[in-house]
């Protein structure tokens, strides 16, 4: 028994040795430099332009032209969709993530939060300090999209009616909050997370890689289960079109495409120049799903109920599902990590 104990000790020692200390740090740094940093910087810039657009719009004479707001929204939402699935790093702190977007919407939380902001008479609740304390469902892209693209509020925003001013101020508050959070996240990546990774020991470096891969696999799960299977519903007679993400602005398919492209880009950054067979397989599967999504029907809400469109959406779902299976099996071993399992299959 004592001999066995000694052997067990040696074995444990060998298994625990940090054989890839430099590798995991390099992998994490590639993901940070090639993926996270540029994308958060782009998000900070796009949301800042959007806040400026709202500032201008609210000062302009009514009836307002909403063209600049629409363009700013699409640019900011594009930038968000390209980094949306990441939870690792500063976006995961102070509940920032749930302030950025509140989707899927449950219990009509976005609708209720927005109505509340619009109907309250006080200006003070829209100040940056107080606004943070309101329901998170009313603070991000989901609420802004509804305000700008839901017919009733869109007409209100355009019009010269007295209520128009409040609608504009609510939009400005949301756009400002999005810009502030995005700037903080981008700055903290540059000033805190990147330097931390540059100095990281093996455990911290591996943690970064593990959590980024977990985020990536979760992204594929969310695209499949919520963004596609949700609106498809169980059959063509039982579709759930309004569960699609951002259907009011017609962004549902585009968002899926940008999510998948981002998943491909992160996979590429993580794997680096020598992905190996399993890694290459995962990358190919994700990029194939991304390319199928590029040609999927633009209006997801209509497509799920149309026989020809539905077939294309089902094809996309299958491609995402297969990418998810291949990536789940192939990415962790090719990056020499084991993903945490509590969130995937707790008990």
């Amino acid at each position: 028994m004592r001999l066995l104990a000694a052997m067990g000790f040696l074995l444990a020692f060998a298994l625990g040795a940090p054989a890839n200390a430099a590798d995991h740090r390099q992998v994490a740094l590639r993901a940070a430099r090639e993926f996270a940093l540029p994308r958060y910087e782009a998000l900070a810039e796009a949301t800042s332009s959007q806040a400026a657009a709202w500032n201008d719009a609210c000062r302009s004479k009514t009836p307002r032209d909403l063209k600049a707001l629409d363009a700013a929204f699409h640019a900011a939402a594009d930038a968000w969709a390209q980094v949306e699935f990441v939870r690792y790093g500063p976006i995961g702190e102070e509940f920032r993530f749930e302030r950025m977007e509140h989707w899927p919407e449950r219990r009509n939380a976005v609708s209720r939060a927005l109505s509340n902001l619009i109907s309250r008479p006080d200006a003070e609740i829209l100040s940056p300090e107080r606004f943070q304390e309101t329901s998170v469902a009313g603070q991000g892209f989901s609420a802004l999209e509804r305000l700008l693209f839901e017919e009733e509020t869109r007409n209100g925003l355009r019009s010269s009616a007295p209520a128009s001013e409040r609608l504009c101020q609510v939009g400005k508050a949301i756009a400002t909050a999005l810009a502030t959070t995005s700037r903080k996240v981008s700055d903290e990546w540059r000033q805190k997370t990147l330097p931390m990774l540059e100095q990281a020991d093996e455990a911290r470096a591996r943690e970064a890689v593990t959590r980024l891969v977990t985020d990536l696999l979760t992204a594929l799960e969310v695209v499949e289960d919520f963004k596609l299977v949700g609106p498809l519903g169980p059959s063509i007679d039982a579709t759930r079109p309004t569960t699609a993400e951002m259907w009011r602005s017609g962004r549902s398919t585009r968002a899926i495409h940008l999510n998948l492209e981002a998943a491909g880009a992160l996979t590429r950054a993580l794997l680096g120049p020598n992905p190996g067979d399993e890694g290459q397989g995962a990358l190919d599967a994700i990029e194939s799903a991304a390319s199928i999504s590029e040609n999927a029907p633009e209006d997801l809400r209509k497509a799920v109920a149309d026989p020809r469109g539905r077939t294309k959406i089902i094809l996309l779902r299958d491609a995402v599902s297969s990418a998810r299976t291949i990536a789940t099996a192939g990415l962790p071993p090719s990056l020499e990590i084991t993903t945490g399992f509590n969130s995937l299959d707790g008990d």
Partner: protein
Amino acid sequence: MAIDRRSFLAALGAAIGTGLSPRGAFAGEPIYVSACTNANGVHHVAAFSQDGRMRFATTLPSRGHDITLRPGGRELVVFARRPGNWMAVIDPISGDVRKVVPAMPGRHFYGHGTFSDDGRLLYATENRVENGDGVLGIYDADAGYVRIGETMTNGPGPHDLTFLPDGKRLVVANGGERTEADSRDALNQGALESSLAVLRAGTGEVESHIELPRELRSLSIRHLACAPDGEVVFGCQFKGDALNVMQLVGILTLSGETIFLDIPEDDLLSLENYIGSVSLDRSSDIIAATSPLGSVVAFWDRTSRRYLGRRRMSDICGVAAAPERATFLVTSGNAGVGMTQIEGRAIERIGGDLDRWIWDNHTLSLDRA
């Protein structure tokens, strides 16, 4: 997949506590035990002190789930994750495997177990494979953990269990899912039969059987924490439409009713319909419930039922009382181990060796048990 008994025993025979600590060292010092996995995917049960030093790490043949301490501190019992084929009796100081008890033919361990106050009998939640009925397997620890009988839990999918303070009655959380033999998939999705059963340990008689209201039939009650006054906190997982939102943490009161604890909507949504573990702090006044799906731990005051707030930690699940009041040790599958207080700010990482492990669902605080 049934494990061949002999090779399985051989596997555990070769499973060695690496003996990192001198014997008898944990008196007075808080030690925590948890199932975990190393970077190479090898499953272990490990003990560590609050300063982040590993005391032992013993390999297991498959993922472990909960751990219970035999009263008197003589032994730890680790249960395989459901559907489990084994439980292992471990030396609490060295981590040496003293005995492996395979599941009885036709039964699977379901992840949790608890001892009678005198430390003689061990009650383990189990599944009757042929029909998915829940049973408690009863083991005589003095007689080498021989299985001396079983009793029905009055519902399928029994998971966590706890003795009430009188030491005579057990509360069992019947998760309500019926599963096929070796599977974890529910056959009765949408019509769960979850309940809390209060059983007389001596006779197996069901003293009461508490079902949730009909509109909550997609809630699965999984985990329990009993306070010294006999109130039992329970944590649930919602198995219905993902776009629905349900209250998840409640109390079985002294009058035998179930109440759910209020929580602001933003905070409830962030729990993602899933509680992985519940715990009471040292004073038993503070409730903590973790959601690995939401990466959140939420707190309530048990006496006033008041919500106290939440903290974020990636893939958080294990939670156990720390020595100080209103303080918990929390573990993660990808962000190490931390200490959290209801006062104060972010969760403080302990770091060190603990960062190297993937921590599984539950953590046991040894000096409290």
